[in-house]
Every structure is written in structure tokens, then in C-alpha cells.
């Protein structure tokens, strides 16, 4: 039982990390109807900008850690703002009114571009990232179970950060003027435009917010794995989370992440040995597929109403 709980908790925490990536997808899809495959590349770009800036500020300019960290985050945020601006100005604005699949392809093109650019500018090695998050594994509930349950402290912090992020996003969407405009655009482009909401600004803002979410995801994942190219593969880990939760729902991304994280870890540990191991990656998709067969729009997605 202790072992089961350990796997379950590990899976849930990993799932929260997937949710962080999935959140960026959801924000952009809601506001602009673009299925943004470049989210993984954005995570990589943000993380690379962060780790390189932090490195230079600490080792060459000898800034104190706190100041360097803040400045590095600001720099990475600026880079993401630049990416958002370029995406809106050079890609989205030119492809207004095209079919979803064309926009999707364009974001795959952006993925290639960003991956190449980020690695040319910031280098392509594996960079360890230390932003002050503790990394020691800790044992909890030692009184209840024999030997306790092993939990990675970093994962717990990541979960806390994800929770804070979602709360901030919720406040931003519910309470601010821009947030209300974003929700209006998500609801109906044409109607939002006709009451005077500038679509282009909104798209820039939403890509910026997605970029900042990518920055947070990149910081957390970078601390966990080191900043490296494989961070872009997170996009593929986030997709089952996304389809399970529904493309249009922020809570869906969180719940989907929890279900996928727990499901794939449990499957890997308890089914994996019987099937030769390594089943994690496709099991997530099959799990999402099973949920989709019951609810084709995902758990929390908007109900698809079709008319002729």
C-alpha cells in the first residue's frame, strides 16, 4: 500500500508538471483557436534564456544570486515577449481566417525556427539550472507506513508553483480588464471585435501569457532535468493531458495532468514489467483516447454542437 501510494503521489506530481506545459496550449487555443505546437519550443527557449542569463550574471558580472535570478527572469520574460510579438506580427496576422490545420502547420514551422534560433543564440549543451528550489528527496508519513513514502521535494514545490500560477491566471482572467477582453475573444472573435476589442493586441497578450507560462514550466523542468533540447518533447507529453482535459479548459489541463500523470506512472510500475517496459508514453495516449471515446470534447471541453 505504501508503495502504491508512493507511485501514485509521484505520478500526480509529475502530472502537475505536464499541466504546466498544457496550460500554455490551452491559453492560446482558447483565445485564438490556434493549436500551438510551438509551446514545447517556447519552453526550451525560455529555459535557455533563463539559464544562460543567470549563468553570465553570476559568473561574469558577479551579481548576488537573488538579483541575478530576478534579472534573468526579467530577461527571459523579455525574450518571450519578443517571441509573442513576432508570432503575432509575422505569422498569426498573416494567416487570419485560414483553416486550423494551416495554422497548426505554421506553429510547427515556428517550432523548428525557435529550436534552431534558441540553440544558435544560447548554445546547445545541457545546462544545469539552479533557481533555489530544493532537490532532495524526502520521506513523508513515516509513522503511517513502514519506511514512509519517498517524495521528491522539487516536485512538491513544482506543484505549489503550478497551483499559484493557476490561481494568478484565474484572477487575471476574472478580475482584470484585459482578462475580461481575453475571455470575450475566446468566446466569439467577431462579437469581441465588433464591441471594439483589438484582436491583434489580445493575441499578443495571450501569446505573452503563454510565453510566461512556458517560462515557469521551463524553470521548473529545467531545475528537474537540466535545460536541454529534450525539453521540447514536453509538447508531446502535454498533448494527451490536453485532449483528456479538453482544449478549452484551464481546470481541464490540471485535472487531465493529474489523471495522465498518475495513470502512466501506475501503468509503468504495475503493468510495465509484464509488457516489457517503456509503456509510459503510449499508455498516456491510450488513456486519453479511452476518455475521449466517452466524451469526444475532453472532460471539461466545451460541448461540440454541430449544425448543418
Amino acid at each position: 500500500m505504501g508503495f502504491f501510494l508512493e507511485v501514485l503521489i509521484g505520478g500526480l506530481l509529475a502530472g502537475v508538471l505536464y499541466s504546466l506545459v498544457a496550460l500554455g496550449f490551452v491559453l492560446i487555443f482558447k483565445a485564438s483557436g490556434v493549436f500551438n505546437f510551438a509551446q514545447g519550443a517556447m519552453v526550451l527557449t525560455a529555459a535557455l534564456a533563463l539559464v544562460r542569463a543567470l549563468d553570465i550574471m553570476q559568473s561574469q558580472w558577479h551579481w548576488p544570486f537573488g538579483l541575478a535570478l530576478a534579472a534573468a527572469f526579467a530577461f527571459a520574460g523579455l525574450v518571450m515577449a519578443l517571441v509573442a510579438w513576432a508570432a503575432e506580427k509575422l505569422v498569426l496576422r498573416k494567416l487570419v481566417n485560414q483553416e486550423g490545420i494551416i495554422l497548426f502547420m505554421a506553429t510547427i514551422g515556428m517550432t523548428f525556427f525557435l529550436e534552431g534560433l534558441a540553440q544558435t543564440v544560447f548554445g546547445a549543451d545541457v545546462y544545469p539550472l539552479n533557481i533555489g528550489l530544493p532537490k532532495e528527496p524526502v520521506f513523508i508519513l513515516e509513522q503511517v507506513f513502514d519506511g514512509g513514502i519517498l517524495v521528491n521535494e522539487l516536485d512538491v514545490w513544482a506543484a505549489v508553483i503550478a497551483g499559484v500560477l493557476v490561481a494568478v491566471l484565474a484572477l487575471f482572467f476574472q478580475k482584470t480588464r484585459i482578462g475580461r477582453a481575453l475571455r470575450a475573444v475566446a468566446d466569439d472573435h467577431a462579437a469581441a471585435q465588433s464591441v471594439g476589442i483589438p484582436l491583434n493586441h489580445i493575441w499578443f497578450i495571450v501569446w505573452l501569457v503563454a510565453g510566461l507560462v512556458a517560462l515557469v514550466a521551463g524553470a521548473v523542468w529545467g531545475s528537474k532535468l537540466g535545460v536541454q533540447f529534450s525539453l521540447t518533447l514536453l509538447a508531446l507529453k502535454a498533448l494527451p493531458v490536453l485532449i483528456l482535459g479538453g482544449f478549452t479548459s484551464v481546470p481541464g489541463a490540471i485535472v487531465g495532468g493529474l489523471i495522465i500523470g498518475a495513470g502512466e506512472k501506475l501503468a509503468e510500475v504495475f503493468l510495465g514489467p509484464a509488457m516489457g517496459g517503456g509503456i509510459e508514453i503510449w499508455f498516456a495516449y491510450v488513456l486519453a483516447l479511452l476518455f475521449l471515446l466517452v466524451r469526444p470534447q475532453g472532460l471539461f471541453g466545451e460541448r461540440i454542437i454541430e449544425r448543418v
Partner: protein
Amino acid sequence: MFYREAGQFKESYRTDQAIFPIAQDRIVVLVVLAAAFLVVPFVASEYLYRAVLIPTVILALAAIGLNVLMGYCGQVSLGSGAFMAIGAYAAYNFAIRLPFLNPFVCILLGGVVAAAVGIAFGVPSLRIKGFYLACATLAAQFFSDWAFLRIKWFTNYTPSGSVNGPPLQIFGFDLSSPAAAYLVALAFTCILGLGVKNIVRGHIGRQWMAIRDMDIAAEIIGVRPMYAKLSAFAVSSFLIGVAGALWAFVYLGSWEPAAFSIDRSFQLMFMVIIGGLGSILGSILGAIFIVLLPIFLNQALPPLGALVGWKISTATVSHFEAMIFGALIVFFLVVEPHGLARLWSIAKEKLRLWPFPH
């Protein structure tokens, strides 16, 4: 001046419904085909075969297959690499377990197996639509990556996990030279491509397009969505499976599951989108473009760097390639979202008036 259909009268339904109703089109196609079959084998170098011609021809077939599903039936699939893998490994298993079968029969049987699996993975499309379906097809991709790596029976328990195709021969002729391999691939692509062109012109193809344009409306006017969607999945997977088997037997010779990874799926999807959704010609143009572009960048970048006095390392070249590739994809989509096939038809319109525009 040369491209006028004036004076070409259609006197029967047969001529009116021909694949190429304009005589000049027929001539151009015949000349291109004749050049591909008769001239290229005498002039092409080994490098040209291995790097350009054979990959282009085989991937064009796969792109046609994907276009059937995406362009004609409107079902987005990110799992085409998986169906190539299934075709390749099924053909391999037929070849080693039934050694009396000719390799070409094995290739076709590989396509049949891929079609069967394609139908199975097409079933969710009856309920799931759009991007949800696209993501769901990734299940096929990751499952096949895993299965061909971990289930040893598929690779005949070879210790390295890499398998070898049988030697290609027919009626005692050895077909392992690059020229012969090219001709084999070209023959497959032309024959199957012609078949697909006729299918999409016919009654099944019109059902697919009705489903693509609006599936509920199609259902109401009497198109059976299950039959139409699953037949599109079957035909598409068959073509992609045959292309996969050709890729393995004719092009690679010995291969590992990584040859059919998700990158392959994206590559095929690029071909279809850049070439033009819902166009056979577009698939071929897209395949040529996507195969040639990285080779061109690879050749052109180091000299360009040397020109401005900057020595580019191999890693930087590959990053630059990715950047330029991505930028060009976006550029093409912005300039012409309907693909190269659309550019071609615009060119034809212009050509009809040229050189007297009034």
C-alpha cells in the same frame, strides 16, 4: 500561346471526364513520365539516387496516402510514420516467415496489414474530430515505436533490433542496383498514384470529400460516415504501408524503428500541406520540395558562411537549417496556404493568356 484548349472539342462523356482533359497536359505528363523512366536511369549518379530520387519517389507515395486521409477525407492524422513502420515490419515478417514469397508480394501484403491496422485506428474517428483526433492518432505512432522496439517477435529476435530486408529480385533479375531500385519505387508510385487518382474521382472519392466538407450534412444526404471514413483510413494506410515497406526494402535495406519516428509523420504532413491538401499533384510536388530543401540548405550554407568570412560548425549548420526550414514553412503558408498545387494552377491560368493578356 502553346497552352490553349481552343479547338479541342469534347464529343463524348469519356473525353470530358478524362484525367487530363487538355491535350497539352497529357503531353507534359507523358514527357515527364518518359523522362523519369527512360532518361533519368542513364544520367543519374549514385549520390543522386540515394539522396534525392529514391526518397522523393517513395515519400511521394506516402504523401499521396496521407493526402487521401487528410486532403480528401478531412481526417487529420499524425500517425503516418506508424503506418509506414507497420507496412515495413509486416513485409519483413512475411518475407522471413514465408520465404517462398516474392519480395514484391511481401511489400503489397505489408500494405494490406497496414490497411487493417489503419481501419482499427480509424474507428475512433467516428466519434472524435479535428485536433482531438490528430492527437489521438499519435497513440498509433507511439504504440508502434514501442511495439517494434520491445516486442521481439516482430524483429525476429535479432539481438540489435535492426533488421534486414530480403534481396530484391523478380524472375531471376537482381534489382539491388540504385537504378533498379529507383525504377521499382517509381513504378509502384506511378501505378498506385494512378489508381488513387481514379478512386478520388469516383464515387468513393466524392463521399470522402462530402465527409470532409461537412460530415453531418453528408450523413443526411445518405453518405455512410462509417464506411466513408474507414475506407479512407484503409486506402490511406495501404498506400502509406506500401511506401513504408518500399522505404525499408528498397531504400534502407536494413533499418530500426527510429526510421519511422514521429519526425517522419511530421515530414509527411509538411509534404501534404506545402504541396496542397486534396491534390495528388500537390503531394508529389510537396515531396520533392521537402526532400530537396534540407539537402539544398546543407549544401548551400557552409559556402555562404565562408563567403562572409564566418566558419560555421556542423552543429550550427544544423541549427541554421532548422531555422531556415521553419521560416520557409511559415513563409510558404503565408504566401500560399493552399500549397504548391494551387501555385501550379495559377500558373496554368496565366499561361493560357500568355503572351496576350486581353
